[in-house]
């Protein structure tokens, strides 16, 4: 049942023209960043070669690119999560799910997975771009792996939070702006922190992504992302249940 809903969400994303437009634009932006990075790397390569233990192409090109993607995802995901529940509520299609023999857990997890499939596609397309480097140099697969994992977890946590915001309102635009504002707040908490042990910083998904970005696979970060997703998915399920009582 979860997969039925997930598949429907995934399919319906592709029946909207703007999805294709966004995917195209993203691909263009990624490629641009990728080439800019690659260009700089090629210019300084000769100087780097004189250093002992010089950073390779993966660290110099791929890691910053993934950092950029993390930022873009932050701005992108609210656009997709706003549709998930708020728009269904506005179009009164949520009734179909509410009166169907599926539980609230199925609905929420289905929608979450549906959007995650789409985000995986975006991350994978980016991954493929980086993998083209393998034609000219040796790649650091470990670093690539942690970056990919980090991106996926980051996207998942943004999706879970965006889904929750979406379940709070009837207006998709409010859901999008609300989610974006919170993502931005969390990001600011991360970048404005003076020291690494700032408490607020610990709440920001981006700060936990930092470790993945540098190739560090830390169980604390893994747990953070898992907890973050679970908490917001549970809150969304609760919100849908409340919806049957109070709306």
């Amino acid at each position: 049942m979860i997969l039925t809903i997930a598949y429907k969400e995934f399919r319906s994303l592709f029946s909207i023209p703007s999805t294709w437009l966004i995917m195209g634009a993203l691909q263009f932006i990624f490629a641009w960043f990728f080439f800019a990075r690659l260009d700089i790397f090629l210019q300084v390569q000769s100087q780097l070669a004189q250093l002992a233990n010089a950073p390779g192409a993966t660290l110099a090109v791929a890691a910053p690119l993934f950092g950029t993607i993390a930022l873009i995802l932050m701005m992108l995901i609210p656009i997709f999560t706003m549709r998930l529940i708020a728009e269904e509520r506005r179009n009164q299609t949520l009734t179909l799910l509410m009166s169907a023999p599926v539980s609230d857990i199925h609905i929420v997890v289905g929608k979450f997975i549906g959007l995650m499939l789409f985000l995986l596609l975006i991350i994978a397309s980016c991954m493929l771009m980086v993998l083209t480097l393998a034609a000219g140099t040796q790649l650091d697969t470990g670093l690539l792996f942690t970056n990919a994992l980090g991106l996926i977890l980051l996207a998942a946590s943004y999706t879970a939070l965006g889904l929750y915001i979406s379940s709070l309102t009837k207006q998709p635009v409010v859901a999008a702006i609300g989610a974006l504002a919170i993502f931005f707040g969390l990001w600011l908490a991360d970048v404005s922190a003076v020291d690494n042990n700032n408490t607020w910083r610990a709440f920001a998904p981006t700060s936990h992504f930092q470790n993945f970005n540098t190739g560090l696979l830390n169980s604390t970060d893994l747990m953070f992302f898992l907890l973050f997703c679970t908490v917001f998915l549970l809150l969304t399920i609760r919100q849908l249940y409340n919806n049957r009582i109070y709306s």
Partner: protein
Amino acid sequence: MSVTAPITLSARNLIRRFGQREVIHGVSLELRHGEVLGLLGHNGAGKSTTLQMLTGALLPHSGEIEICGFDLIRQSQKAKAQTGFLPETPPLYREMSVNDFLLFAAKLHRIPRAQIADALTETKRRCGLQDSGKKIIGTLSKGYQQRVGIAQAIIHQPEVIILDEPTVGLDPSQIRDIRALIRELGNMHSVILSTHLLGEVESICDRVEIMHHGRLIYGDSSTKMQQYGSQSGFIVTLLAPPALSELQAIADVQQVDPLSTTQFRILHAVNTNPSVVLLALAAQHGWQAEQLVPLQTRLEDVFMQITQDEKL
């Protein structure tokens, strides 16, 4: 519909509040297999809220709902698998094609994979959507969207079909089609529909419940409702009428009111009907009887009368 048919839906003492305001005050309903029940009421009487509660989209604050023996709150998935719901606004994903949408609805209602294709063809045939399968729902006309909405509610052959104002916004020929469809569905399933069109009740419902300010104030078969507060009698047209007193003299006639020079309204007791005698006399005396129409109260009048009575 027989009285022995199994009960498919029963609701007891439903109470629903919105904030502090109680909008449904203890509604109880029962529906049997093969029955079409019309829920009638003014705008804002609580029809939609009641129907939403029967489908589990809204939870009642108190009361019980049982569908085919399954409790809607405790065994919600089993109970919901037996219901099909068309809300006031059909819940359609406008960007999907009719086929995709109905397939999604079929899977959502747990139709076994092997039967999905058959269910899809059958439902499209019943709702007259054979040629619209590949069309995008957003591009369909209102009438066709309504059909897709109904198709979505019946694709899994539910025991109980709940339709919230199914014919609103349709043109007359579409209304006729949809009514025929509902009548057909009523033979094999149980149907509840809400409406404020009295003609709809007259033409398709076996039973009527009238809802007023969140209460059910009247429930009976729709034929009985038509007789509510009515008088037995008929209107007779005699082209060469006799004197009023002669008509009054006929046995069992209680009252004669001349409506025009040739038309008379004749009232009589419920169980005696003087029309045969009158026609015989007319033939005998050459009154030139032209037509004889039994008095029929219009449902509108009955409805107004019932809701008025409640206000007093």
